[in-house]
């Protein structure tokens, strides 16, 4: 068998990893790379011009996310926002990594940018069901257990609970309002953080995250540039900064702001939010056609953690842009390579810094059987996805799977 032929059409189906920048956002940022280059921290008029530009972006993000402008902190991205939240929440004062300041709790399906800090702090995780949805009873049990430990003087109590708004691998939307209720009752002193990075494009993020004290966002997931993120820090929430120095961002995050990036992020956020309802409708149709088509044409392919509905799968608990499947008898790495040869770009689980695929902690937490986990495939859609790309993916995936099965692994 020779290598698959390259085709002129491509299908980029990895929008959950990153999505193309909106052209308007690119245009908006260019002057700030060029003539409007001043440092917003300065006192003179050129500095104030740059300051105004980032504050305008701040206003836009604040309105979309349901916060006051002063509550919007710009960071270098979702990972920095998550780290800032987990390490710093509930403590005031100088930065420092200490587990003694209180326990941190998160869901078992968080992105590594939340999970790894929680584990580094000796924190606890809360399980999910087979659909990837937070197990609220387990959350209550964990918080009760921690309250007992605190009462016995064994710990300082729960400092932070972090539950993502939508999962980056399978797209499950989490029951934040219910979780917040439980936290309010069982760990009233705890700060509630939500990583809303994957939810921004697809949900009314102001409504969804209104219960949270801290909210993380990432610009390159909604058509902005890489290198810009947001942490919403509600007034009155104690947050020890990771980065101190010049005192920018109200002392929450020192460092000269990425003016061009922030300006672009504001433009992208506006476009994303304004077009959201129609985008969700459009994307849902494309995603459903893709998923239904794959289920019909590839034997041994299942929608990961699917929830049965009266007339077919109930995908209402997932964001519109994610189609995650598990395929028997194939290895994700091999499948992705064949797909790439036919210009279908997708992913499975996460990659480590070497570029190798790691096993998915999300699929494990959902109790997906090992044989299926090995054949996971995430196809994620975005604002630039077209019908033609879906057609192409539907044409490429089934023969690729067949080829892998025929060749043995």
């Amino acid at each position, binding site marked *: *068998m*020779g*290598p*698959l032929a390259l085709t002129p059409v491509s299908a980029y189906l990895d929008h959950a990893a990153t999505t193309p920048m909106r052209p308007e956002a690119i245009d908006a940022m260019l002057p700030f790379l060029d003539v409007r280059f001043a440092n917003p921290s300065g006192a003179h008029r050129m500095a104030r011009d740059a300051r105004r530009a980032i504050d305008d972006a701040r206003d836009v993000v604040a309105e979309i996310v349901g916060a006051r402008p002063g509550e919007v902190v710009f960071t270098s991205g979702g990972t920095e926002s998550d780290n800032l939240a987990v390490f710093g929440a509930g403590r005031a004062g100088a930065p420092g990594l200490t587990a003694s300041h209180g326990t941190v709790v998160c869901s078992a399906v968080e992105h590594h940018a939340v999970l790894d800090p929680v584990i580094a702090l000796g924190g606890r995780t809360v399980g999910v069901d087979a659909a990837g949805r937070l197990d609220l009873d387990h959350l209550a049990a964990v918080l009760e257990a921690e309250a007992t430990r605190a009462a016995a003087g064994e710990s300082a109590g729960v400092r932070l609970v972090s539950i993502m708004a939508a999962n980056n691998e399978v797209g499950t939307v989490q029951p934040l309002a219910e979780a917040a209720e439980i936290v309010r009752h069982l760990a009233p002193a705890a700060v509630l953080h939500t990583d809303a990075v994957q939810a921004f494009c697809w949900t009314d993020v102001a409504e969804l995250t209104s219960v949270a004290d801290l909210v993380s966002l990432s610009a390159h997931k909604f058509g902005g540039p890489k290198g810009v993120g947001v942490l919403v820090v509600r007034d009155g929430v104690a947050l020890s900064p990771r980065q101190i120095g010049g005192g920018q961002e109200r002392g929450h995050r020192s460092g000269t702001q990425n003016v061009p990036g922030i300006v672009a992020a504001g433009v992208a956020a506006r476009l994303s939010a304004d077009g959201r309802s129609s985008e969700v409708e459009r994307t849902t149709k494309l995603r459903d056609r893709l998923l239904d088509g794959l289920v019909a044409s590839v034997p041994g392919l299942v929608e990961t953690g699917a929830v049965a509905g009266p007339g077919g799968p109930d995908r209402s608990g997932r964001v519109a842009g994610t189609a995650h499947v598990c395929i028997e008898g194939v*290895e994700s*790495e*091999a499948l992705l*390579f*064949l797909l790439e040869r036919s210009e279908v770009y997708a992913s499975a689980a996460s990659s*480590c*810094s*070497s*570029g*190798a*695929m*790691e096993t998915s902690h999300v699929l494990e937490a959902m109790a997906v059987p090992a044989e299926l986990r090995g054949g996971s495939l995430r196809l994620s859609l975005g604002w630039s996805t077209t019908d033609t790309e879906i057609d192409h993916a539907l044409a490429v995936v089934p023969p690729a799977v067949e*080829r*892998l099965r025929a*060749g*043995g*692994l």
Partner: protein
Amino acid sequence: MSGGVDSSVAAAMLDEKGHEVVGVTLKLWGGDSDSGCCSVSDVDDARRVADQLGVEHLVFNFGDDFTTHVVGPYVADHAAGLTPNPCIECNRHLKFDRLLRRADVLGFDAVATGHHARIERVGPAGEPRIVRGVDGHKDQSYVIHMLTGPQLERVLLPIGGLTKDEVRARAVELGMRTADKPDSQDVCFISHTGGGRSTFLGARIPLRPGRLVDAAGAEVGTVEAVELVTVGQRRGLGLGGDGEPRYAVSVDVPSATVVVGAADELLVGAESLAGVVWADDAARGTALAGVGITAQASAHGSPIEVAGVVVGGGPADDQSHLVVHWAAPQRRVAPGQSVVLYEGDTVLGGGTVTR
């Protein structure tokens, strides 16, 4: 592509010849050692060499199989008093098995590596065989001896015809960043900076003190960890000083006893091998005919003259057992190590030494 100079040059040579080359680095171990071979920085080196050559670079995560077939047995063998060669098991199960199958299913024609060895059609009917690399000091035919005909048809070893100096010179010519990178010496999953083998094993199996006894059974010393003693070892037994050198002659982990003796007590006339693999049937026939056969009993050992090779020594009817008779008495080979049989410079096959 391990990130080392050998595989870098091998990739360059194939690319120059006009083959469609894709560089692959195997992610095998992410454990305590990220400083051995194929660490994150090694993957970076491999990727940048590939970038320089203009070839695609992929990373395959075979960590699960590596744990099952290489690290797990390495630990278990030590607990049983054997001396495994994990590189041989990695070649046997990962590089020339799983990777070869992955290459097949993706539509590739061959897997190439930077091993110092050659594949030539020198079998009696033109069958492909492994032949020692031209650089005697660097020859690695020993660690890839297990490849059989069907595998040999799909493996390429581009640098076997070059000396190490020539390989490095090619790398320098090509402006490769790995040109003066030192060869990796140790087991790839054990950090040489983190306490080495004893720390690695000590974290996984109990390491128990052992008694050193002479042939008569009299105790002559002790060792801290009987599981770390290798047959043939002289240093580290605490038996230095006056008198003639003494060596570990046999190791019995259950009784935590090491029998030590003088050099002549290590000599044996034959070795028993299990799990023997042959390049092909003709190679097996040649070995059993016993004419002009030599053996190599360690990664850098010199060829040993063989008097004869006889099937047997294992369970009845088990054809994968052999007894190799030395032409002259030889020091015992540590059980767990491989003995590879050659006709001249050509590999015929090999197996693992049993007790």
